[in-house]
């Protein structure tokens, strides 16, 4: 559905090489903890993580683990359960850059990470972030704040959407309507920010050895 450019998925086995065996061990231990020694994890297993409760976008994060687009499967929609390989696949989105990456690899790396974020925003999987979805995101983000009314959250989302429109489409005529943020627009908006250095979890950097792709 709807023109989402598919990034060529690298082979999963190569992907798991991007994290060292020590990290895989650690993640495996964690996986077993979460799954209670089963082979797969379901959504309910995430309830056992105490600190995650306080996260305002908890729902979206958990959802991201089961999103088939993130799991590099050709189909769409949500998986019911994921195995360890899938778990690793999701974690690999958060690996840090390595010193010896060239321009093309960096660019691909960046696109992958941004795609992950894009999928979190685009909840109905149609390849566009519409105003409603954006409002949803902002409301969730501000949901931890009891004093804030829904109205404020909506006006903020509207304001942000307008900024996005002005960046992506520029000057708009009075009757033009901005459909939604596509992935290309999303890339444009994040252009100034070096996401590849920010989007990583520290732990995944323990003792990385350079690998060739």
């Amino acid at each position: 559905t709807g023109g989402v450019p598919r990034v060529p998925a690298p082979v999963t086995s190569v992907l798991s090489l991007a994290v060292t065996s020590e990290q895989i061990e650690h993640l495996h231990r964690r996986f077993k903890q979460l799954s209670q020694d089963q082979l797969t994890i379901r959504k309910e297993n995430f309830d056992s993580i105490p600190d995650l409760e306080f996260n305002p976008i908890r729902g979206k994060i958990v959802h991201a683990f089961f999103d088939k687009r993130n799991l590099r499967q050709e189909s769409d929609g949500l998986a019911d359960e994921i195995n360890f390989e899938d778990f690793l696949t999701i974690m690999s989105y958060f690996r840090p850059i390595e010193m010896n990456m060239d321009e093309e690899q960096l660019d691909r790396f960046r696109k992958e990470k941004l795609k992950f974020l894009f999928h979190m925003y685009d909840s109905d999987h149609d390849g566009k972030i519409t105003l409603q979805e954006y409002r949803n995101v902002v409301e969730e983000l501000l949901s931890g704040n009891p004093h804030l009314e829904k109205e404020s959250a909506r006006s903020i989302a509207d304001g942000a959407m307008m900024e996005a429109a002005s960046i992506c489409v520029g000057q708009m005529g009075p009757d033009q309507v901005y459909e939604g943020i596509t992935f290309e627009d999303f890339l444009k908006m994040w252009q100034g920010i070096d996401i590849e250095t920010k989007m990583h979890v520290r732990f995944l950097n323990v003792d990385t050895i350079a690998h060739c792709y």
Partner: protein
Amino acid sequence: PGAAAMGTGTPPSPSGTAFEETRLHVFTLDYPHVQIPFEITLWILLASLAKIGFHLYHKLPSIVPESCLLILVGLLLGGIIFGAEEKSPPVMNSDVFFLYLLPPIVLDAGYFMPTRLFFENFGTIFWYAVVGTLWNAIGIGISLYGICQISAFGLTDITLLQNLLFGSLISAVDPVAVLAVFENIHVNEQLYILVFGESLLNDAITVVLYNLFKSFCQMRTIKVIDIFAGIANFFIVGIGGVLIGILLGFVAAFTTRFTHKIRVIEPLFVFLYSYLSYITAEMFHLSGIMAITACAMTMNKYVEENVSQKSYTTIKYFMKMLSSVSETLIFIFMGVSTVGKNHEWNWAFVSFTLLFCLIWRALGVFVLTQIINVFRTIPLTFKDQFIIAYGGLRGAICFSLVFLLPPAVFPRKKLFITAVIVVIFFTVFIQGITIRPLVEFLDVKRSNKKQPAVSEEIYNRFFDHVKTGIEDVCGHWGHNFWRDKFKKFDNKYLRRLLIRENQPKSSIVSLYKKLEIKHAIEMAESGMISKVPSSVSLSDYHEGKIKPLSPTEMENMREILTKNLYQIRHRTMSYNRHSLAADAGEKQAKEILIRRRHSLRESLRKTNSLSRERPVLAFSNDFF
């Protein structure tokens, strides 16, 4: 300067009789009465006029940093005074520097420090500041001692301890010089915070080393216990300074909670408490710089919410003004103090000092970076290392410290002064001027001074939560974990105590509100507030002042306003907390104004009246 009192009447002569009295003076000149404030005012006025002069030729500040020009002016002045009076001009008193001129600059820097970036890089900054300065001090001291041993240079009377002391005072990277040079070249924030943070934090170790070696020079024997005392002293100096700063920062925040009836003196509390933290730390011989930085960083968040908008603007502007004046004065005085008779030139000592400063700095940065890169998530590249090494500028702090050396213990004090001046001039002039072309040549990542956009803030928040969530899933305690914990503690206890009207705030909301207010002011100034209200006024109004509309009508209103605001709300002005130079912003505001008037004229021309083509907009006018 010091003209005697003159009068039109005859001054009483010593041999005059007791009956002769002086007539009434119609006009008198009494300079000694006002001498001190008069001179201070003249100096400050001169400094500010010099600043105006530099900016007359607009290209000048971009090629040559202001610090160089100011030193040149100082040299000129010093030369004039020296020529006129045949004696050394008033050398900048170290007390004046440390007690009056330095605090405003550090306060300004600490208040506007990007705290998040600072804490993310804290380990690296601390590493460079402490270990780096130690490395430099001891390296320079020992190598200079080696040079002094060579009898051909005539330096054999300088002992090892004296060399070590000299090494410790010259290895201090100076925050004033760094600020002066880096503010024009706009390197990326990460690099800036590393160099600048280092220059702030190294004050602790500089103070300790300086006092340590100075005492050692005066002591007969040195025992091992003294060395341990030195190490303990370091911890006390550093941590003590920070604690004083934090404590007074909280007191200041607490005080501002109750100032809503006397808004006019609110800014005063900010300045008084920070200055108090500085001099309290100095009183105990702790690190004043760290105290005032800690105070400013602590105070910032809470004070901002308690004080009124006007007070906040006052604080910002006054702080910037004070620090600017201080900086200017410091550089001019450095120039003035250079001219004079307290120099002793020795080719070997001076040139080797300079050489060793450069070599040890470069080596130090290189070696330390290799070690710290293991612990960093984003390793520092060679380019970064080069800029960090090159940005290690020396300035007024070493200058003042060298003047404080007791001449009884240091018979060769003049030699040291000369060497320090040469090093400072080299770093400020040569390194200061060449760093900009080097940054461009090396293509170092520059800071993208983008305007803060609400969408960006939303992304950043979203991002933080994603990262925290993933870290929770991984079972890993990262930076985000600690930051989260601190935020919770902050919300639960600190904010309740220190902020008057405590509502849990979101950075997204506050940024949005700030931009809305700016936008509203902009629109009011341009006279276009009548036609299209912004959505903030929409949500404020609809509470109870007008007849209620059904939700669907409200929906329509919203949609239409949203669409129409596309044309008008192009971009909002930048709200850059680090500098108040709004040159770009003003130009942009003018541009927006022109575009708006143009678009309004266009639509008027097209439709012949605003209301006919847009019936619903007319409806909205009735509504408001």
